[in-house]
């Protein structure tokens, strides 16, 4: 689906990516995590053909993204953080934009729109930011594109909408579709994003499924400051310590807390299966 190799990219003279590698097979909801300025949005734009790499190889859906071939673009839906919607009704918007997406499914669109409780009689430019996001998401999901890139999709959504978002995206996943969700709100994404990709200092320092991770480690909440050789990472939180321990035998039967995992990976990436130096 997506293969990046030896990718170099820089804004001006300061290099952001030197020798970036990434391989994304289809059929998953990838979570792309990273600190501010790590280059998450830049990576998404390189994949979508909005930025051109300085050198290296890239293949997205069988195309070189810099060519921006219509066949590639019509198979990608990209929800950015900032967007603009014209001053028209939903029906007009669909009339003008659907012809560019051959796999668009009108029934699915109507279902999503009603799931998100959007008022079809309103002009889309009068929607609030959250409603616009839900509208674009409905359009993107209904377009049945093979690749969906969502940049901070839950920003601006209220609590019930976030729950609905998780449900809707989970139900829209098929074998042929791939989601890449870039986010800081990992707690909104728990039980949704599965293979986790962590980008740090221009390098992908972690790329693994949570199942693989939980085979070898466990995250626990402990009252006392943790001791022992099996402690990979610990941080003070209200009510005790959030601890990441080596757990190859499955002694601790706990899920993986994504925020703690993220902090632990940033602190010592090579302690994890899927992590790299």
């Amino acid at each position: 689906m997506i293969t990046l190799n030896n990718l170099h990219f820089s804004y001006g003279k300061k290099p952001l990516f030197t020798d970036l590698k990434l391989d994304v097979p289809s059929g998953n909801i990838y979570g792309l995590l990273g600190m501010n300025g790590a280059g998450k949005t830049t990576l998404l734009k390189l994949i979508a053909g909005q930025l051109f790499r300085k050198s290296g190889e890239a293949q997205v859906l069988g195309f070189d993204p810099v060519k921006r071939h219509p066949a590639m673009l019509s198979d990608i839906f990209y929800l950015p953080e900032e967007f603009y919607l014209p001053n028209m009704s939903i029906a007009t918007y669909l009339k003008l934009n659907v012809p560019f997406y051959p796999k668009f499914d009108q029934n699915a669109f109507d279902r999503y729109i009603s799931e998100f409780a959007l008022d079809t009689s309103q002009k889309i430019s009068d929607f609030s930011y959250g409603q616009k996001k839900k509208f674009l998401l409905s359009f993107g999901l209904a377009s049945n594109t093979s690749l969906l890139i969502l940049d901070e999709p839950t920003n601006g959504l209220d609590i019930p909408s976030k729950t609905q978002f998780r449900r809707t995206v989970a139900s829209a996943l098929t074998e042929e579709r791939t989601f890449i969700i870039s986010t800081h709100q990992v707690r909104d994404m728990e039980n949704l994003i599965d293979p986790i990709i962590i980008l740090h200092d221009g390098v992908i320092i972690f790329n693994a499924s949570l199942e693989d991770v939980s085979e070898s480690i466990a995250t626990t909440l402990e009252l006392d400051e943790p001791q022992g050789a099996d402690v990979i990472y610990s941080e003070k939180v209200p009510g005790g310590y959030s601890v990441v321990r080596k757990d190859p035998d499955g002694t601790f039967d706990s899920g993986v807390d994504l925020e703690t995992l993220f902090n632990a990976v940033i602190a010592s990436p090579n302690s994890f299966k899927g992590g790299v130096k």
Partner: protein
Amino acid sequence: MRNILLLLKKQVYEDKKGLIIYASVVFGLILIPNLVMGFFGKLPSSQDDMGYLGLFGNLLFAGGFIMVSITYAQEMYSKVKQHAWLMLPVHAHEKLIAKVIYHAIIYPLVLLIFIFASSVIIEGLNAVLFSSSTPFLDMTDLAVWKMILNYLILQSVFLLGATYFKSANFVKTVLSVMVVSIVLSIILALIARVVYAPYAQVMFHGGISIDETTFIMNTNAMNLLETYEVIGKTIYWALLAPFCLVVSYFRIREVEAKDAV
């Protein structure tokens, strides 16, 4: 072809509100002074229809250039709208062709019909209210079509400016054209000085004795002048617009997310 038609339809829908405002303002600006002048019995005489032709020319050139300038600034280089521009599943050349058809062909023709229709309505009113009878805009006037041909060429320069400059493209295009003209005229003047220096010497310092040599040389000079004129016309009518289009195409193909301002 299908994509170009879809793009044109999209453009018309998205510009609809702005175009209606534009048309209303123009119509109002013709109508109101006309009514005032009619009221004071100062309507222009019946032979003078330069008013509509001049108005058409002004709106064609100024309006057209501004439209071309705005459209790329607002779509290709706008921070919020560029995303949609880049992700739209069409080829770069289709985007360019759709915009060129819209600005270079549809706009002049629609404007022509609009001004003609306005002139019919307003002169109709004048005839009824003030018993005046100025002619409508004459669409068969050669001047109209000369304007449109020149507009076709010149709008390509603004197209180039609009795709080349990321911000304030209209002002920068005008300034660039000025600078280029000045530089060109300096170069031409220098060439003229060098090339015509011998003739000038003969002509101005040779006294009144006109001999055979001077004649031949003068004929050569005239031929040279004619050659320059042909070169100039060819550049203007045949080369300028294609050059601007090709450069614009490459800018559109190579625009990146980081170009947005």
